[in-house]
Structure formats: C-alpha cells, structure tokens
C-alpha cells in the first residue's frame, strides 16, 4: 500500500506522521512517501509566528472549531514532555484588542484563563477600548517542522525533493493513495477558485522584553490586517498585513512602513528593537478547509486523493485535528479496499 503525501509544511508532515502512527502496525505493506519542492525552513509554516489562535469566528464551520480544540489539547498534553523545547512548543499569554465590544470567540473555553481586560490593562493600549486576555500556545514552525521530519525519518518515511505535476503522475507509478497537503499551490494540481492567497508580511525584530502576544483587530478590514506583535523564542514577529488576492512573495517597502509604524504606536518601546529579518508569505485562504476524499480517474488510472488544504492563517492552530481527520479518511479507504479484496472471487 503506497501512500504519497504531497507537501512538507505543517499540514503535510503532521498528516504523514498521524497516518504512520495509526496504521503502520495494522498495514504491514504500508509505504509512506513524502513529496515536496519546499522543505523547512522555506515553507509557509516556517514564516508564521506559530501562535495558536483561530480566527474570531468559525465562519459557520463548527468542524474547524473541533479540530482547533483537538490540536490545542494535543499540544497541551506535550507541554510538560521532554520534547517540548525541541518541538518549539511553549505557553504564551497575551492580549486581543478591539475598538468596540465584540462577542466572545468560539475558542474561549479552549485556551487557558480567557477573560476580558480590566480598565487598568486597557490603559496600556490607548487606541483600544475592549479586549481579552488569555494564555495560549506557541508552536514555532522552524522547530516543529524539523521535529516532525525527524520523527518521520526515524519511522522510515521517504522524502523526495520533487514537484509533482499531477495526481496521475503518482497513480501511474503505483501509488494507491495521495494525501494532498499542497497549501497555497493546490490549484496547480486541481483548479480551486475558492482557494485564494491572503498575502502577509512580517518583520522579525529583537525585542526580548516583550513577553506577551498582542493582536489588534479592525473589524472592518478583517483578520490580520491590523498590527500584531508575537514574541518567539529567538525573535519577535511584527505583522498586520493580509491582502486577499495578492500573489507576491516580495517584501514591500510600503507594507514594512505600515507594520513598523503601527506596531511602534502600539508598543512604543519597539522603536528601540533591532530588525533582524523580513518575510512575506501567502496564507492559503478558503471559505472552509478542504478536507475530503476524492476518487480521481484518468483513463484507466484510478486512485484515492485525500485533500487537506486551505487552512488560511490558522494552519498551525488546526493542524493536528486535520491530520487526525485525514487519518480517519485514510482508514475508510483501507476498510473499503479490504472489503473489495475480500469480495473478489478467486479464479
């Protein structure tokens, strides 16, 4: 049973790990291969700050809230384990700020210690009049992806630095199931008009005195288009750009100024922070995550594809719940194949 995972971002690597963990002992013939043209530290997941936080509303996708919760609980369970530091996993507390009262988010009971901000706390942020405080998790891609890669390598999963041009290409080579975790470029394998880039740009600075995340919200302009500050283990990420439909991965000087000015206004001490890097990436935005099976036929070639892409700006936040769901779909495929082979008359 040959399974090809496409994509080596957080979605591809975690889906591969989840499937291998659950099925390698049940399916002795399981051969897992991972194909990607981008590996850590060059994936979208590597550029993200790594804060676990879903969007403010689930956009009607209750399933996504459940997957977010599964991910948070899974990570929380690893927090006290010896692997935590290597995984890039740690607790981080912080602030979400608004210019008007807003309803509590669907994840208020998932994070730790969620509460409204007190008037004294709001004095810290004169441009904002309402907000939340909670403790969440950081999962830094630059550490987590290598950790996942090590776990997969230990398990004998084979990695191929290769761009796959079509699902058929793999089926013609004898692959039985493809797990499609190609993120922003899924459209190249199969057109998907619902998948659009949400371009982000971030500035990396040294500001080790910042110990909280601060995410501001402008309810009119949309998620991540208002300044945010997220302290990581090696540097602090300043951001606040989310341009729908912009495919450019070049850093823009104007966006740099927007981020710098708005973050320094939010936290005046940042004026003294040293800039150590800049990065642009494309959030693979979709009205909902595409996590479903598809039987793909081309001529006399047939294979099963499990799509797992379109995680927007919450890939790290939702990854494990989606990996588990992908593994369940894979389990269904195995069941069907087993029944089909049992039903084959012996000639």
């Amino acid at each position: 049973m040959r399974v090809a995972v496409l994509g080596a971002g957080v979605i591809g690597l975690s889906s591969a790990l989840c499937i291998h963990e659950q099925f390698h002992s049940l399916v002795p013939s399981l051969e897992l291969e991972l194909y990607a043209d981008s590996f850590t530290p060059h994936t979208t997941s590597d550029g993200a700050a790594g804060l676990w936080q879903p969007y403010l509303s689930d956009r009607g996708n209750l399933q996504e809230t459940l997957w977010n919760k599964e991910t948070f609980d899974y990570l929380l369970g690893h927090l006290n384990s010896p692997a935590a530091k290597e995984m890039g996993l740690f607790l981080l507390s912080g602030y979400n700020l608004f210019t008007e009262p807003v309803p509590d988010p669907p994840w208020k009971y998932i994070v730790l210690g969620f509460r409204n901000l007190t008037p004294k706390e709001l004095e810290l942020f004169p441009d904002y009049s309402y907000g939340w405080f909670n403790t969440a998790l950081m999962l830094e891609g630059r550490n987590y992806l290598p950790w996942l890669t090590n776990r997969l390598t230990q398990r004998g999963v084979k990695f191929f630095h290769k761009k796959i041009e079509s699902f058929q290409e793999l089926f013609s080579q004898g692959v039985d199931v493809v797990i499609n975790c190609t993120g922003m470029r899924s459209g190249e394998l199969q057109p998907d008009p619902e998948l659009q880039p949400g371009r982000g740009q971030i500035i990396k600075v040294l500001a080790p005195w910042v110990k909280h995340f601060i995410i501001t919200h402008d309810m009119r302009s949309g998620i991540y288009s208002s300044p945010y500050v997220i302290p990581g283990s090696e540097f602090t990420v300043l951001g606040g750009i989310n341009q729908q439909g912009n495919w450019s991965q070049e850093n823009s000087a104007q966006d740099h100024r927007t981020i710098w000015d708005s973050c320094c206004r939010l936290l005046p001490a940042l004026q003294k922070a040293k800039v150590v890097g800049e990065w642009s990436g494309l959030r693979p935005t979709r009205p909902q995550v595409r996590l479903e099976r598809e039987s793909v036929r081309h001529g006399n070639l047939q294979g099963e594809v499990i799509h797992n892409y379109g995680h927007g700006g919450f890939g790290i936040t939702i990854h494990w719940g989606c990996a588990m769901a992908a593994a369940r779909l894979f389990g269904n495929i195995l069941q069907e194949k087993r029944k089909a082979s049992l039903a084959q008359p012996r000639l």
Partner: protein
Amino acid sequence: MAAPKVAVVGAGVIGLSTALCIVETCPSCSVTVLSEQFSPNTTGDVAAGMLIPHTYPGTPIHVQKQWFKETFTYLFAISNSSKASEAGIHLVSGWQVFKSTPKEKLPFWSDVVLGFRPMSEAELQKFPQHQFGQAFTTLKCDCPPYLLWLEKRLKATGVQMYTRKVADLWELHSEYDIVVNCAGIGAHQLVGDKKLFPVRGQILKVHAPWVKNFIRDGDGLTYIYPGIHRVTLGGTREKESWSLSPDPGSTKDIFDRCCSLEPSLREAQDIKVKVGLRPSRHCVRLEREVLSQGGVKLPVVHNYGHGACGFSVHRGTAKEAAHLVGECIAALQGSSSRAKL
C-alpha cells in the same frame, strides 16, 4: 540655606531611587551618591526584580500597600513608554501556585497588580502537585539595566557619584548637610543595626528564552522569573547566613525544584549561579535621626532593611525618604534663621 548638600550612601536600587526622588522634590539640593559598590555588584543586581511584595511584620499593611502602589504606578508608566527596554522594565504574566490552599486567598496587593484572579482547573492541570493558584500580570525590573538607567538619569541632573567606602556616617558631617543612609545590608556594620540580618538567597540565571510566563510557588522558595535575556530560577532563604559563595548542593536543588514546575527548563543553557543577602528587618527603617558630637549636628535619614522586596516598594520608600529629607532641610533652615537672630 543656599544649596543643601545631601549625601546618599549606597548605590543599590534604594540609594539610586532615593537620590532621584530627592532631586525631583528638591531641585536646589546638591546630591552626591557615595557607595562601595555600584551595579552590577549590588544586592539588587542579583534579584529578579519582580513586583510581588512580601509582608513586613512591623509595618502597617496600608503603608506597605501605598509603597507598592506608588512603585507599581511609577514603573507601569515607564513600561508603557519608549524608555521601557532601556530601563529594563517589562510586564510579565504568570501564576502563583500553592500545594495546599492558603488561608488568605487575596493578598493585600491583589488589586494593584493587573488582572488578578484565581487559576482555573484547566490552568492548574499544568501543576499536578498544586491545588490552588492565582494568575496575574505584574512588572519586572531587570538589573543591571534598571540601575544603569537610574544612574544615567541621576548624572543627567548633575548628581555626582563616587566609589567610596563610608566607615561611619559621622565622617561625612563636614562635607554634607544631610546624609541619607541607603546602605542595605551594609547598615549592619555602618550603623551597627543588630536588628538587620541577612537572608541569604542563591539563584540561577539561565538561558531559556521560550519561558515567557513566571511561575512562583506560594511558599516563596521556588520561582521562575523570565527577564529580558535570562530567566531567574530560585531560590533559598537562609536566615543569618553571610556567605556569598555559591553552594553546589543548592544549585542542584533549585534547578530540580524549578524543573518540576517547568519541565522544559531541563533544556536551559548557560547556567550562572549568584548569591545575594536580603537586608532583612522586622520593618524597613525609614526614619530621621540626628547624630551629634561636640555640639555639631548631622541630620540623617535612614532608608534600609527592605528584605525580600526592595524592588516592590523602592519608589514608595524613596519618596518617603525624600519627604523626610525635606523635613531635615526645613529644620536646618529654621535653626539657621534662629542662629541669625
């Protein structure tokens, strides 16, 4: 009196902040700081500088609360300004956890810090050996940056600072009109205060930049305080111990206790061990005294004995000391005008 000459003995957090308050309240004063030690060799340089007060048994709670509140308010404003990183002041959130539920669930300072509330069940799950906890956000003064920033501000106002070991306050009577004694643990010898005793504290400063929240055991012995560059792990409380040498047994014990609160600390790097002597006393000695020999008088203001919470109350006691200096000046001016008659 033209320009009262004030000597502040001691250049730790108490001496420097007191000197600054005197300059602020008495611009005509000429203030000089004299100290055997300056940052990074003061007691405060060892301390984590967390604004979490202890309780002085001999001081009324409302006074301690006032000191803490003034200090918190003052530092809060700095942390919110562009000067925050230079001054070493930053906000930090975290948890104080108790193995058994304490009698007093609301300490006197709970409404001064930010967002104080009991921990939820979910939060307590990270601490399986602890039954109760409090979550809040407070301030941390990183040293040496904070002391260096105070020194810089003092120099900008014209305050002179000299390395000098003062053996006896009286030796200053011919050069200065008023002496302010902020000698900390040094007051034991300097003024022979037998009520002042050291409480030895050993700490580790480690590189563990993924630790962003503080964790403190309610017993006050085990704590994890993330600073700008290093995390302070503590500690010990050894009454009457004067030893400044690190004890390897304590190092291992502190490390193990902290790792049981925060297991990821096992990966901490570059462990540095430091020792400080908390200048402990039943209450802070914050009062005036007049020394006199052969008809010559020297007004003294004492401001020492802050024990385990120098940082937590430093600005409040500095302001009170500056006020007492003002009283000394008024008294001197009164007696000098009487002398003119």
